[in-house]
């Protein structure tokens, strides 16, 4: 009993250490630079308590569910040895998680409103909604494609660098032709697609797959799915921008 309690306490204090830098930065700027008392001290403190408890529970669940789930499925797929299904799985997982990603919805909505304000698209409600939906669909298809390509890469053992090099070359090329209204949001779409539920699952999946295929190294072949998923949306959102606004 005492032992469990002690290990629980040490785990919670570890979680506290993860959040401590944010507390320090915010306190420093409020007191030293802005030089005003905290506007809602009680609420802020309560918020930090919630953040620490939430992060603690999440990390427990991570080790108990997300990692084993991703790894087990990868091993089962490898046992089956059917490439078609696992590639389809990679695509579906990427597409489904991205289309439902709350952060993407928020950013796309904001991008739509700002584009309408700036007169880049028609300010009618329908046209904004269409633009927002187009952004989300493009990003989700791009992440799905990344999932499929990433899985094939692991199976074949192709080096990641080739894909990164090719991907960035395409991105640089697209940037030259993309209208300037889309460039910022396109680069952001690349970073936003990876949430804290998908990342552990996808990482575990890649590593599980690389560990169960003969001749693959989990370090070299297992990582890289997330990198691909952050790369494809940039290119495809810019293509979408060229399609909507015309080339620059």
């Amino acid at each position: 009993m005492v032992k469990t309690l002690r290990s629980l306490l040490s785990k919670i204090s570890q979680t506290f250490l993860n959040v401590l830098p944010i507390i320090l930065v915010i306190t420093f700027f409020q007191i030293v630079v802005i030089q005003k008392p905290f506007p809602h001290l009680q609420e802020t403190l309560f918020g930090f308590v919630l953040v620490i408890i939430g992060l603690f529970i999440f990390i427990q669940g991570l080790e108990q569910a997300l990692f084993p789930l991703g790894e087990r499925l990868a091993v089962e797929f490898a046992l089956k040895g059917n490439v078609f299904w696992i590639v389809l799985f990679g695509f579906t997982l990427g597409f489904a998680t991205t289309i439902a990603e709350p952060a993407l919805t928020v950013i796309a909505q904001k991008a739509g409103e700002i584009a309408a304000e700036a007169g880049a698209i028609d300010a009618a409600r329908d046209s904004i909604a269409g633009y927002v939906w187009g952004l989300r669909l493009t990003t989700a298809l791009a992440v799905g494609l990344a999932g499929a390509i990433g899985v094939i890469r692991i199976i074949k053992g192709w080096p990641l660098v080739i894909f990164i090099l090719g991907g960035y070359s395409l991105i640089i090329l697209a940037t030259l032709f993309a209208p300037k209204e889309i460039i910022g949001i396109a680069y952001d779409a690349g970073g936003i697609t990876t949430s804290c539920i998908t990342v552990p699952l996808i990482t575990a999946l890649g590593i599980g797959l690389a560990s169960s295929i003969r001749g693959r190294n989990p370090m070299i072949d297992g990582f890289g799915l997330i990198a691909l998923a952050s790369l494809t949306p940039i290119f495809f959102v810019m293509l979408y921008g060229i399609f909507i606004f015309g080339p620059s």
Partner: protein
Amino acid sequence: MAKLHYIDIIFDSLFITLMGILPIILVFAFFQWAVIRKKLPHWKKLLAGMGMVVLGLAVFIVGLEECIFPLGTSMAQQLSDPAFLMGDSPSPDSLFDGRRIGAEFYVEVILFGFLIGFATTLAEPALIAVALKAREISTGAISALGLRMAVALGVGVGVALGVFRIIEGTPIQYYIITGYIFLLVQTYFATKFIVPLAYDSGGVTTSTVTAPLLVALGLGLASNVPDSSLLLDGFGLIAFASLFPMMSVLAYAMIQKRFFSRVPDSRAKPNP
């Protein structure tokens, strides 16, 4: 009464998190049922773990959104407010004079960008997950904390430079393309075992905690800095925060190799 209010919000957040995880569960369930055709072993334990993931994330997000983001965003707004930057001289007309305010007036904002990027990255749940996995499969050659520190430093430097760019108004692609070219040179010289992990770190950094604060910082700055446009300058900080961690992780691996000679490749052997 205030406590009751939070319980309401936590339930809302639980619902949203559940909706977010639903497509994942559906995809997994479909493939388990249609392709693998086996009963999931330990499904009770997995289900309980999933419940913890959803509950933990919901509580985490409520704490962030209700208490920390409002403070962070108002801080970003205040720090980039011309009145705050100019101190006692209150007349905005005499300040602008048709010229931009130079970056030297924005030292506090740039410092804020660096520190908030660094601090929020250390609390990023997705990065914690990847760092745990990296330590596990490198059998300890890559330390979880070292990796997270390297990524956090990269995010901090990236955000600081991104803030500087918004103030100066230079087009984003100049920075990004230069950065990518530098990254490719670095990749050429790096140990090949670290490269995929480094590239993954770039995508991982900007999710739950960092992304909303960076968007708020970018939009706040772009609406306050004279002559900058929301559409052109408001977004883009996230791109900086994804690019620089890749460089910093590669650099971290190089430094570790040179000074501590604990090279990951000697440990992580390919499967027979």
